[in-house]
C-alpha cells in the first residue's frame, strides 16, 4: 500500500532540543503556563481522564442491560449511572474535546500567531474546567445525581433527593470554561492573523472552530441562567418553573435546549474541521468547494439557534410551533450534507492513502451520515412521536457524537500527534485500532436503532425479554469498542518514548503548523510568517521543497 509518510533518517534525526515541552521545567511551569500548547496538553490529559470515567459508566450500563431484569444494580443506581455517564461525557468530554485540545494547540499556529489573544484567560478556562470536573466527581462519590443530564424540572427541583445542586454548580462552572475558550478563539481568529492571512486562506479547521465558538459564547450563558433558576428553586423555592405556583416547567426546557441543541454543534463542528484537514492531506487535493464548506460551518451555527424545540415535540408545546421548528430542523441537514458531499468530491480522483487518521475520517463520514439522516427522522414531527425517548434516539445521538465526534477526535489526535510530541505513533497497530473501533461501534449502536423502532424506551434498567437478543449484541459490541479505545491510550503513551522521530512535516501537509519544527517552539514561529499561498495548496508545497533543495545544494 502506498504511503505519503516521509520521515527523516532515523539514525541521525533528533527531537529539536529547544521546544515548548523543554522550554521550562518543573510542575509549576506547567500549572502557571500561558502557552496555548501546554494548556492544550493539560486539557488533553484531563479530558482523557474524564473520558475513561464516562466510559467505565457506559460499560456498567451495557452490563446491566445484558439481562432483561435489573440484577447488576438497583434501578435507582442505574438512573445515577446513566445520568453521570451523560453529564461527564457531554460537559467534560465532548464539549471541550477537540476545541480545548487540538483547537488550543493549533488555532494560533494556523493563523500565524504566537499565542491566543488572552493566555491567562485560557489558563483560567482550564482551571474552571478542573473545578467543574472535581465538583462532578464529588457529586458522584457523594451519592450521584439521577435526573439524567437534562435536569428536567420539576423532577430536578422537587422530586429527587440527589446531588442536583452540586452537579448544577459543576456544569455552571464548566460552562464558563467553555465560554472563555470560545471567546479566546473568536478574538484570536479576528485579530491575530499573520500578514496576508485573509479569511479565505484560513484552514477549514479554523472556520469550523470559529462557528463553534460563536455558539459557545452565545449559547452557554442561557444554560447558566436556566441552571441558576433551577438551583434557586431547589434551595429557596422561588417559583419560576414550579407549576404549583403558576410556573411553566416547559420554559426550563426551552432555556435548556436553547443551549443544549447548539451544544450538539459545539461538539460536532470542531470535529468537522479535523475531517476537512485529514481528507485533504490524505487525498493530496484542495478541499472541494472550500468556501461552501467554510460557509456551511457558519450556516450550521446560525441555524443551530432556531431548531431547539425538536427536543420537546412530545412535551406539550404548541402544534403550530412544532410545525415551524420541524421545518427549520430539516434546514440544518442542508449545510451538514454540503460538507459530506464536498468531502466525497475531494476524494474523487485524489491520490488517496490509508493512514490511520484517514481511516478514522472514513469512519466519521459513514457514521455521521447515518447519524445525521436518522436525525431527519426525529426532526419530522410525526415520526418523532413514535421514536423519541426510545433507543432509536440513543442510537442516533451516539452515531453523531461517538461515531462522528469521537472518530474525528481520534483522527485529529493521530494526525497531529507527531506535531504535538515530535514522535510518530505506531502505524500498523493504530490502523487495527481504527478498524476495531469502527466494528465495535456498529455492533454496539446499530442494534439500538432496531430496539428503538421496536419500542424499547430509554433510561430503564429492565426491559421485556423479547429485546434481549439485540441488547446482548449491543453489549458484546461495547466490549469490542472498549478495546478499540484502550489500544490508542496504550500505544500513544508508548510512542512518547519509543515512537519514530517524526520531523517537521511527516504527512507532506500544507498547513502553517507543518512548516515549523515538531514539537514547536514556545513562540511557535521564529519569524511571523507572511502568507501568500491558499490553504491546501500542494503545488506551493512542492515549490517550497524544490526551493529548499536548490538552496542547500
Amino acid at each position, binding site marked *: 500500500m502506498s504511503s505519503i509518510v516521509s520521515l527523516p533518517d532515523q539514525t541521525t534525526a533528533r527531537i529539536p532540543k529547544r521546544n515548548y515541552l523543554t522550554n521550562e521545567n518543573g510542575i509549576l511551569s506547567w500549572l502557571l503556563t500561558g502557552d496555548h500548547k501546554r494548556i492544550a496538553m493539560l486539557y488533553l490529559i484531563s479530558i482523557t481522564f474524564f473520558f475513561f470515567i464516562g466510559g467505565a459508566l457506559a460499560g456498567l450500563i451495557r452490563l446491566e442491560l445484558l439481562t432483561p431484569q435489573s440484577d447488576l444494580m438497583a434501578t435507582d443506581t442505574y438512573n445515577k449511572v446513566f445520568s453521570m455517564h451523560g453529564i461527564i461525557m457531554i460537559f467534560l468530554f465532548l464539549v471541550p474535546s477537540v476545541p480545548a485540545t487540538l483547537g488550543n494547540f493549533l488555532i494560533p499556529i494556523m493563523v500565524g500567531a504566537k499565542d491566543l489573544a488572552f493566555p491567562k484567560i485560557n489558563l483560567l478556562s482550564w482551571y474552571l474546567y478542573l473545578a467543574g470536573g472535581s465538583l462532578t466527581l464529588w457529586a458522584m462519590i457523594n451519592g450521584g445525581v439521577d435526573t439524567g443530564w437534562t435536569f428536567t424540572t420539576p423532577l430536578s427541583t422537587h422530586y429527587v433527593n440527589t446531588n442536583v445542586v452540586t452537579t448544577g454548580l459543576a456544569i455552571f462552572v464548566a460552562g464558563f470554561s467553555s465560554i472563555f475558550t470560545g471567546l479566546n478563539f473568536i478574538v484570536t481568529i479576528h*485579530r491575530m*492573523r499573520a500578514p496576508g492571512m485573509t479569511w479565505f486562506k484560513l484552514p477549514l479547521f479554523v472556520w469550523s472552530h470559529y462557528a463553534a465558538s460563536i455558539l459557545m459564547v452565545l449559547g452557554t450563558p442561557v444554560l447558566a441562567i436556566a441552571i441558576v433558576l433551577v438551583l434557586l428553586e431547589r434551595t429557596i423555592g422561588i417559583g419560576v418553573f414550579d407549576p404549583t405556583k403558576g410556573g411553566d416547567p416547559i420554559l426550563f426546557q426551552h432555556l435548556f435546549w436553547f443551549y443544549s441543541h447548539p451544544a450538539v454543534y459545539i461538539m460536532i463542528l470542531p470535529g468537522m474541521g479535523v475531517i476537512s484537514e485529514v481528507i485533504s492531506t490524505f487525498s493530496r487535493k484542495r478541499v472541494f468547494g472550500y468556501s461552501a464548506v467554510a460557509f456551511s460551518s457558519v450556516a450550521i451555527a446560525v441555524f443551530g*439557534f432556531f431548531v431547539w424545540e425538536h427536543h420537546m415535540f412530545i412535551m406539550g408545546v*404548541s402544534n403550530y*410551533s412544532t410545525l415551524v*421548528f420541524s421545518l427549520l430542523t430539516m434546514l440544518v441537514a442542508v449545510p451538514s450534507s454540503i460538507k459530506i458531499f464536498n468531502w466525497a468530491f475531494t476524494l474523487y480522483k485524489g491520490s488517496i492513502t490509508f493512514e490511520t487518521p484517514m481511516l478514522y475520517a472514513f469512519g466519521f463520514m459513514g457514521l455521521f451520515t447515518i447519524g445525521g439522516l436518522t436525525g431527519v427522522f426525529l426532526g419530522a414531527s410525526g415520526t418523532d412521536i413514535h421514536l423519541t425517548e426510545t433507543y432509536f434516539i440513543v442510537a442516533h445521538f451516539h452515531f453523531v457524537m461517538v461515531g462522528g465526534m469521537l472518530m474525528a477526535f481520534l483522527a485529529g489526535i493521530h494526525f497531529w500527534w507527531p506535531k504535538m510530541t515530535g514522535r510518530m505513533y505506531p502505524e500498523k497497530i493504530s490502523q487495527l485500532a481504527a478498524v476495531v473501533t469502527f466494528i465495535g461501534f456498529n455492533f454496539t449502536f446499530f442494534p439500538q436503532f432496531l430496539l428503538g423502532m421496536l419500542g424499547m424506551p430509554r433510561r430503564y434498567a429492565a426491559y421485556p425479554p423479547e429485546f434481549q437478543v439485540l441488547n446482548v449484541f449491543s453489549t458484546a459490541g461495547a466490549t469490542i469498542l472498549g478495546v478499540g479505545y484502550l489500544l490508542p491510550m496504550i500505544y500513544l503513551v508508548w510512542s512518547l518514548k519509543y515512537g519514530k522521530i517524526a520531523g517537521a512535516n511527516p504527512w507532506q501537509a500544507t498547513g502553517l503548523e507543518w512548516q515549523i519544527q515538531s514539537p514547536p517552539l514556545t513562540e511557535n514561529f521564529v519569524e511571523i510568517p507572511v502568507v501568500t499561498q491558499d490553504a491546501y495548496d500542494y503545488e506551493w508545497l512542492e515549490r517550497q521543497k524544490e526551493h529548499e533543495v536548490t538552496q542547500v545544494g
Partner: protein
Amino acid sequence: MSELETHHGEEPHIVSPKIYVLIAATLLICTALTVAASYLELGPWNAVVALGIAVFKATLVVLFFMHIKYSSKLMKLTVFAGLFTFLALVGMSMSDYISRAWGSF
C-alpha cells in the same frame, strides 16, 4: 492584519466630556418622562412607550458611553449579533407560547 493596517497610526477617538454631560442629561430626562408616562392611561401603549424609552436610553448608552458610534464595523456587528440572538431566544420561545391556545389541527 489588513483591517489593522487601516487604523495604523490613528489616535483612538476620545469622546469629549461635553457629549457625556449631554447624554447623561438626556438619560435623566428620559427617566422622568418614562415615570410620568406610566401614570397616563394608554392601554396597551403603556408598555410600548416604556419599552420604547428604555430602548432609546440603552441605545444612547451603547453608542456614546460605550463608544460604539466611534468603533469599527466589527464592534457594531458584535452588538448586533448579541441583539439578534436575544431576539431569537425570545421570538422562537414565544412562537410556542402564543399558539398553545390555538387548539390542535
